[in-house]
């Protein structure tokens, strides 16, 4: 499979923002401008995450999705605050290709099944935001990393796929925003047990970090700080991937 370089924009409508460990937020500018630039630079997909929807009960990202879809001719995934089937319908009709579910998927896993039955599994990404737990394994958190679930992340991942998730997005909260590299320990555990594509998020600091994700057989890397702060461009990253003999899309 061709490896995917996915640009992620964390959005506190109407601004693009960036945090570390999923909190502490800095305004960076207009999401549409950044998204357009990444699209033109060769991003394989764009990911919009509404980071306040789960907290404040708002779902104001729809307008941003609609205007993004006007200029972006690559797939757009939208996450954050999707609560019910109708929200998914709304996102898809306004230009999203896939939706990413976390809080609602954990609270109501039957929503995954409902969405997969109506829209197809390929449209439904389940996002796991994980931290190590005291039992020596991993726990998925919800509400933008603010609430513990007490669940085992591996068991949850398997369950999510059984319910129809077509793709898993794994974020290591500890690495997110640090630019210190990705954590693979949890992701590699579930990779062995699942056939669905798994994409990683959290920690990219340079092109080589992303090459490492590809070498370990994951379907793609979801990156934000490294792009927003100009540490590496998508072109740099794809060049490094090609040098490492990883197939990527280049025009």
């Amino acid at each position, binding site marked *: 499979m061709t490896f995917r370089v996915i640009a992620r924009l964390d959005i506190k409508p109407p601004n693009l923002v960036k945090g570390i460990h999923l909190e502490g937020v800095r305004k960076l500018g207009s999401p549409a401008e950044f998204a357009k630039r990444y699209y033109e630079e060769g991003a394989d997909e764009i990911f919009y995450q509404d980071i306040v929807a789960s907290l404040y009960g708002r779902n104001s990202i729809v307008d941003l999705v609609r205007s993004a*879809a006007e200029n972006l*001719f690559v*797939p757009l995934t939208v996450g954050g605050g999707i609560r019910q089937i109708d929200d998914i319908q709304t996102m898809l009709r306004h*230009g999203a290709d896939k939706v990413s579910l976390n809080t609602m998927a954990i609270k109501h896993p039957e929503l995954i099944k409902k969405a997969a039955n*109506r829209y197809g*599994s*390929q449209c439904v990404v389940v996002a796991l935001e994980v931290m190590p737990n005291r039992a020596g394994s991993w726990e998925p958190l919800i509400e933008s990393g603010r609430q513990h679930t007490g669940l085992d992340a591996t068991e949850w991942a398997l369950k999510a796929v059984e319910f129809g998730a077509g793709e898993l997005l794994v974020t290591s909260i500890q690495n997110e925003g640090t630019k210190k590299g990705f954590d693979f320990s949890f992701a590699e555990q579930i990779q062995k047990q699942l056939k669905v*594509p798994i994409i990683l998020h959290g920690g990219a600091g340079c092109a080589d970090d992303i090459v490492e994700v590809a070498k370990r057989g994951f*379907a793609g890397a979801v990156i934000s700080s490294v792009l927003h702060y100009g540490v590496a461009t998508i072109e740099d990253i794809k060049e490094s991937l090609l040098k490492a003999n990883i197939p990527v899309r280049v025009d």
Partner: protein
Amino acid sequence: MVRVAVIDYGMGNLHSIVNALKYIGADTTVCTDDSFVNYADLVVLPGVGTFSEGMKGLIDRKQDQALKNFANTGRGILGICLGCQLLLSSGEEFGTTAGLQLIPGKVTCIPFSGAPIPHVGWKKINVLDQKKNYPITNLSWGYFVHSYHCEPDDPDTIIATVKHGSNSIVAIIAHNNVYGFQFHPEKSGSNGLSMLKNFCSLWG
């Protein structure tokens, strides 16, 4: 300028395909009923969803019969992703459902052969040697996102394929004036837009 009707059958991402068609200069209308037969040079059947829900959506709006009538007039039909799959005789997602029967064949689950399923991501589209005269840009990148694939009865209807694991799966299918793209040209960057533009220029 080609007049394109995009079929709204209650599901799927209309916004992107409509934007893409407008971007390449097509005179584009969204049609929620069967009136497209009156004005369109080309009909686009988009698609995100499941086969059975898709057929239900078309049947409820009487668009299934209208599409069959439209095909008989020799004007163009382009199915995209689920829309491509619905063109076939039947689909096997959640039981067997009859399709539009415009291209003989069936839609089945992609068999596992080492690569992840659903099939998600970018692939180079290989136009088959014997089909090189089709006016579709060769070796362009297409974005694929699907779990089911087209298995046409007649191999001559296969225009292009992509590799997935150790298999080849259908990327472009055609029978007379009815075409299907398994990938999303409206999501395949600038290459996708030029494939779409080339294709539209055949019809008006």
